[in-house]
């Protein structure tokens, strides 16, 4: 019974998210385009699938994974777990947080793989590239970027180094990569940075950030808890462009080798 109540609340929330889109499309169809929509029945069924599917997905996450993930984030960042019980810690030692970095990386990877917006973008990328960009390969590359980013983000919170330094350096790398990366991948790489931080990743990652900022000695949750999301959207850009560059470089090498062999 309680579950039904929760579920209908989530369903209502999803409907409210969709409402402006429906209004907009109906308005344009009726007043601007003035034509009927082809396959209307199929579209409506698809729309209902999306809404119900997303609501089930969110309700399930909130029931099963989020509470568990949040508890674990708190337990792992608990000083009693990291330094042993009874130890009084006044200064954070960044080397003691090995499990935290590993957890951050793994949970970043895992949540990104399950991220519905990324599934959508990867599906489209696979479709328009006529299969040369594999949807699974793109998702794994993005997830690796998020894993590294979030791990580095927890390191930043633990050491208390300023956020903008990391971000500025990250942007520098992105700009330099942009100049050299294959042109066809650039737009997709930037997009994958924007879609990683969504329904699955944000709640778990935010819990980890706030938990760390609250328990690491000398950190302030209001100032240091933010910024993990920024890391999670910066590093996938680097990893996707990096992967494309690697592929381009390898193709070049193999062509060169072929030429050499042909010359001989």
């Amino acid at each position, binding site marked *: 019974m309680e579950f039904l109540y929760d579920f209908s609340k989530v369903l209502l929330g999803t409907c409210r998210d969709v409402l402006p889109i429906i209004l907009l499309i109906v308005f344009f169809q009726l007043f601007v385009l003035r034509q009927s929509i082809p396959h209307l029945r199929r579209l409506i069924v698809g729309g209902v*699938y999306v809404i119900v599917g997303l609501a089930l997905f969110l309700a399930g996450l909130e029931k099963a994974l989020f509470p568990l993930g949040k508890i674990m984030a708190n337990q792992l960042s608990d000083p009693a777990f990291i330094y042993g019980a009874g130890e009084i810690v006044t200064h954070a030692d960044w080397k003691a947080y090995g499990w935290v970095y590993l957890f951050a990386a793994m949970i970043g990877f895992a949540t990104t793989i399950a991220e519905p917006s990324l599934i959508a973008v990867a599906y489209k990328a696979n479709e328009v590239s006529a299969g040369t960009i594999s949807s699974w390969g793109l998702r794994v590359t993005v997830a690796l970027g998020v894993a590294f980013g979030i791990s580095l983000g927890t390191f930043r919170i633990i050491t208390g180094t300023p956020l903008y330094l990391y971000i500025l350096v990250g942007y520098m790398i992105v700009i330099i990569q942009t100049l050299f990366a294959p042109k066809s991948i650039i737009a997709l790489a930037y997009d994958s940075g924007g879609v990683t931080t969504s329904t699955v990743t944000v709640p778990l990652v935010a819990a980890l950030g706030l938990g760390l900022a609250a328990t690491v000695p000398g950190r302030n949750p209001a100032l240091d808890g933010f910024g993990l999301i920024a890391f999670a959207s910066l590093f996938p850009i680097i990893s996707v462009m990096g992967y494309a560059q690697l592929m381009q470089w390898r193709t070049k090498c193999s062509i060169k080798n072929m030429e050499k062999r042909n010359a001989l």
Partner: protein
Amino acid sequence: MIISIILKKIRQAVTDLLPIVLVIAFFQIVVLRQPLPQMGEVLFGALLVVLGLTLFVQGLEMGLFPIGETMAHALARKGSLFWLLCFAFALGFSTTVAEPALIAVAAEAADIASQGGLIDSSQESQKQYAFGLRMSVAFSVGLAILIGVMRIIRGWPIHYLIIGGYGVVMLMTIIAPKEIIGIAYDAGGVTTSTITVPLVAALGVGLASTIRGRSPLVDGFGLIAFASLLPMIFVMGYGLIVF
């Protein structure tokens, strides 16, 4: 036939979720050495998640992608730049302005600003500040989709726009008040919801495949990138103007 398709979709959803389950199980059992609490509830939730993801992906292919592309084709064929840009702006603005994540971030930002003594601590001025922040983010997302659509139509190369944008972000990071920077960066991440993303992606790809001389891969993507870049600039700009 249908059953095998459904089974394939469900298997895909299970594969998508497996990593999360493995990570949580590993840390719970090996590192923290605690039994999983409320096994039944967790399993039930996981079942819902798999079911939901399966339905969502099916709905993407049937509903969201086609409607986005149909709108893009119809608007491009109509040939009116004005209405196309109106649609782009309205899509960005209307899906962002009521986004719960954004409302939460704006309220939090108002709280931090009043603690830091940047605005009055009265309820009234906090509300005003949060509202202004929300409006500037929603406006910036609308503008971002509009600029992105313009780019697809005109065929401007994306990297000049994005590098320019990042340049502005870096400059503003240096001059903007410190309290707003973390919020500004996070605002870029929370603006694009799970339903907006497929629609916007379909709009971009649909436009790029309708307009002659544009490649869907090179020109069709990038709308989401603008939608996460521009809010950062606007939020920092808002911080500069208000303080």
